[in-house]
């Protein structure tokens, strides 16, 4: 059907236009103006903010952000896929229990959970204690304020966002397909490869996006668990807004990030559309 379902789309579109697009217009406007030493936005138009943002000295931080967010998203997917599979196909009546147990830790404060990780990872923390007792190391490891700690923090925070969409798409799969394949003599591995995996792909892609996109803008993990060399672009934007009060430059950086991500989403939509 080529007709546009206006009645279905209208509520969302109106809300989005009024409360997201309109406020963002002020951000776009800001990015094209310079700022006075007094933090006032000056009336003349300029591309300087974008020139500064595209300056090659910011490339490392952008690259690092994509790397950390990408690793975290991938790790979350790898950790989450078997969990989604188990809940959707093996948990039976306990499905809802497992689902809510998955989400429950995240109803506590992100900050406290991150502090709890700091307690676990610190030099005289539980992890080091276990490793020492097991004889795997002879000296406690410096786990905090490292890239690994940041990626761990990010992964942990996004496990549910990666897992839930995978669960959702596995759940709606017709289980009889698996039975049929088994009746035809296929082993577990080929069932997975030929039946389950392709059908779960939309969920995997959605889970990947739902964890990767917000991870790119995250600033808490790098701030609490990272060192000076682990700053992500979220920290940079945060600093521009709240430290230097250079909102135009912060806006330019944010808009570049948004444009990059939106381009990625459109590419994903095209790929999906082609698959059909």
């Amino acid at each position, binding site marked *: 059907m080529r007709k546009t379902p206006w009645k279905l789309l209208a*509520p969302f579109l109106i*809300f989005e236009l009024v409360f997201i697009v309109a406020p963002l217009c002020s951000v776009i406007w800001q990015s094209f103006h310079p700022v006075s*030493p*007094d*933090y006032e936005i000056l009336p003349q138009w300029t591309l300087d903010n974008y020139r500064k943002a595209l300056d090659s*000295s910011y490339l490392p*931080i952008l690259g690092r952000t994509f790397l950390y967010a990408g690793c975290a998203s991938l790790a979350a997917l790898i950790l989450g896929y078997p969990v989604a599979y188990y809940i959707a196909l093996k948990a039976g009546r306990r499905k809802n229990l497992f689902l809510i147990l998955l989400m429950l830790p995240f109803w506590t404060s992100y900050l406290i959970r991150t*502090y709890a990780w*700091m307690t676990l990872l*610190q*030099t*005289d923390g539980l992890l080091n204690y276990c490793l020492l007792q097991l004889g795997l190391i002879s000296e406690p490891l*410096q786990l*905090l*304020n490292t890239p690994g700690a940041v990626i761990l923090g990010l992964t942990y925070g996004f496990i549910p966002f990666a897992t839930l969409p995978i669960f959702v798409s596995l759940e709606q799969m017709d289980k009889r397909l698996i039975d049929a394949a088994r009746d035809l003599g296929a082993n577990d591995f080929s069932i997975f490869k030929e039946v389950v995996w392709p059908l779960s792909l939309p969920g995997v892609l959605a889970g990947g996006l739902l964890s990767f996109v917000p991870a790119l803008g995250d600033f808490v993990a790098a*701030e609490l668990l*990272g*060192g*000076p060399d682990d*700053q992500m672009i979220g920290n*940079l934007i945060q*600093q521009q*807004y*709240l*430290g*230097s*009060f*250079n909102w135009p430059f912060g806006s330019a950086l944010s808009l570049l990030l948004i444009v990059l991500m939106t381009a990625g989403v459109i590419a994903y939509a095209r790929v999906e559309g082609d698959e059909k």
Partner: protein
Amino acid sequence: MLSRRHFLLGALALGLSAGCRGGRDRILNFYNWSNYIALNTIGDFEKESGIRVNYEEFSSADVSFAKLKIGVTGYDLIVAPGYMVRRMMRHDLLYPLGPELSLPEFLPHIEAPPFDPEQKYSAPYLWGTTGIGYNARKIRNAPASWSLLWEQSLAKRITILDEKRDAIGVALFKLGLDPNSVDPGELQLAKKELLKQRPLVRRYTSDFTDDLIRGETWAALGWSGDVAQAQDSNPDIRYILPEEGSFLFVDSLVVPRSAPHPEAALEFINYFFRPEVCRDITNATGYANPVAASKPLVRPELIDNNLGYPPDEVLSNLHYQEDVGEYESVWDDLWAEVKR
């Protein structure tokens, strides 16, 4: 697609918040740093004055300034650091504190802070110093010098405040230069020092206390009251005010121009100046108060101690952070480059 239910609930919320303002109750909307007051202060004030206090806390001055700059109104009384008072004065966001204020005798070094020498728009609240908090068990024989924060053997055990004025200022102190310098040559030297320091730094953060207590950081650039609090949790923590000189800061009570209840704010300020009241706050927070008559009442460990009320010879070595005017962005860029 907001249903009628949403509208009703929303109207209720708006109605409640509107009813909270004006009406028969006298109200004070007070915005302060977290844990920057004694437990009994607000309650006692409410009982005596009949004013109901809506007490809200923030953890970062910059974030609350951002809110005020955009135009959020409704706060009557705010506790702000010096540079924020200066910014707010420049943007004409403050209500002049008039003759209704009964100023007590202040300690001499607090009387004319550079951001508001005539104390027209601000009343001093608490003051402190910037120094080094360190773990005496891990660091024996710590020198009374800023060079401790450049000590190679402390690699990745040093925390530096994420505050450009403090961090760059300390580098300037170490080099024997003016900590409020705007000279480009001097600033470049400071930048070199900071870049030399960077590989040793574990984190750039203003929340250094937990790391100090935990023992992950052994030496931190920090503020006196915070270090005093860390000491409460970990008795190995000590405080140094280096010989090269250091910073003195004063946090002030200000009333925004948009305040709905400025008289209530002024009444609180007068209440705060009572020696017993500010004594309670000093005892609770570890930060000294500006009222001269209150000093003898404060708990004895804080007197003549660098952590509380430093002795006079130390005080003479302390500087305020002065306005750098249009060089603010130079300092901003410098700091951003160091942190990258």
